[in-house]
């Protein structure tokens, strides 16, 4: 099955493979935050509703909530981040992913942006 990547106005990305969505923050988001010094990730098994605060990412001078772009049950949080917050700065859209969830309603993906739409959104709002 092919993967597809979606983006949100809160600067998160969602990579969907089958019914599993991997979620992280975009390169633009990390560049705005600066050096990440801490993340708080959701526990596996937690049910998240779309729009619910799921994680927190902190730099020295800012703390931002990461919202669940879509609803689902958390299957895994990225354990590698605990030892290396810098992954979020260095590889935000690959190794620096935050958590994975099992999609509850794939229809919600329809409300998100594709890369071109997101790039246009960033250009307009940056």
């Amino acid at each position, binding site marked *: 099955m092919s993967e597809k990547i979606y983006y949100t106005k809160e600067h998160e990305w969602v990579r969907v493979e089958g019914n599993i969505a991997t979620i992280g923050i975009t390169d633009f988001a990390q560049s705005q935050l600066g*050096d990440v*010094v*801490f993340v708080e990730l959701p526990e596996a098994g937690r049910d998240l509703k779309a729009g619910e605060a799921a994680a927190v990412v*902190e*730099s*020295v001078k800012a703390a931002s909530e990461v919202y669940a772009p879509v609803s689902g049950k958390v299957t895994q949080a990225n354990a590698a981040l605990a030892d290396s*917050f*810098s992954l979020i700065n260095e590889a935000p859209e690959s190794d620096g992913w935050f958590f994975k969830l099992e999609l509850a309603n794939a229809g919600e993906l329809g409300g998100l942006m594709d890369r071109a739409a997101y790039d246009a959104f960033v250009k307009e709002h940056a």
Partner: protein
Amino acid sequence: MTSATSHFALDHEEALIFDLGDTQRSGVDLPPPPAHKSRLGNAARTAEIGLPGLSEPEAVRHYTRLSRKNYAIDMGVFPLGSCTMKHNPRLNEKMARLPGFADIHPLQPMSTVQGALELMELLAHWLTTLTGMPAVALSPKAGAHGELCGLMAIRAAHEARGDARKVVLVPESAHGTNPATAALCGYEVKSIPANARGRVDVEALKAALSREVAALMLTNPNTCGLFENDILAIAKAVHDIGAYFYCDGANFNAIVGRVRPGDLGVDAMHINLHKTFSTPHGGGGPGSGPVVLSAALQSFAPLPYVVRDGEQLRLVEQRDAAAQNFGRLSAFHGQMGMYVRALAYMMSHGADGLRRVAEDAVLNANYVLASLKDVMSASFEGPCMHEALFDDRFLKDTGVSTLDFAKAMIDAGYHPMTMYFPLVVHGALLIEPTESESKASLDVFIDDMRELALAAKAGDAARFTAAPLHAPRRRLDETQAARKPVLRWEKQA
């Protein structure tokens, strides 16, 4: 990289006490106690603590050396906006150390502390007269604690009427303590935008007012250093829907003796004694934050408070059944040491001098604004109140950020102004000279600031991005500190 300091010979590297001392050494001579039978039961300490001791000469040298790594008001201009770093008179210190104030216990019989209670009564009289408010709760221990006191009284007043409200309105330019305090009191915080003139957008405020709103928390003069000129209309709109007006009194220094918050329709306002009334900031505290209260809120004031029974003064420390007060904010009676200092300051100035304090603070700020606005970008047209707000437009395309500019001020011999606050302008630089600066010292400061601004514009970015070069430390790695926190010394294995 060499790091030259202009006074290298006077700036010693200083080790930690854990490297200097050891557990056997002591700078306090105590006689061995006589033999006695322990009454500690089975909880006596057996484990070592690890605390190092220093002899007195070592201790005096250690802390003296550390002190010399600090910037302070005593050393130079401290233009830290919204913090009111004014001179701390030494008479205050002397008075606070009188044994009848410094060496009395909060729970000794009230008959033995009548002078202390009278001082509290006198301080209350000065604070209520200066603010035009009927009552004051003295006990809050700092500004944010005062905010808590005010919002607790507001919530208690609403609940006493059976009117449960859920929302507190806070302008986006507010100090972070405002929303944090509202949240502690169980309120939902709604943010009100500022208008292009740096004031509360009155239309947005009116649109947000509803019967769900318990209070508006507003700083006036506001954090942009501007007087909210629609203040009377704002207060009326808040009262019309049965809500209360909490004023953050952090900037009272601009109006003390010239404007009474009671005349503005304020229901509660904390007064930072360590700002307006000159008690020392002490490197971060202790503060003191008495809260003046309107007639509508005064019966909800916290415990304890002083009452007069004829000639005798007495503290009310317990709730009686009829009382509506919301309880107790801290053990004992508040920051007596700060009351003495603040009262000494107020008595020294008198009604005429306090008025002059506000006027000179406002004059100094406007003088700075007028003298810098052609080389730095002023965020709003003057006149300002006690602080002048600039933003980073003048640094555009220079490669110098607000932070870099501030750090270069350190090399020029100043404490930086407040940066990146308030949030309503980009790259804020907030300068509050206070009334303590002479014209001569401001003229030198202005020359130095102009020189810095022109250097930045001339493309000398390296001087800024590398700054400070001449401080005891250069820029510190805050990312490392937060990623791998080291919050204490540990014995090396």
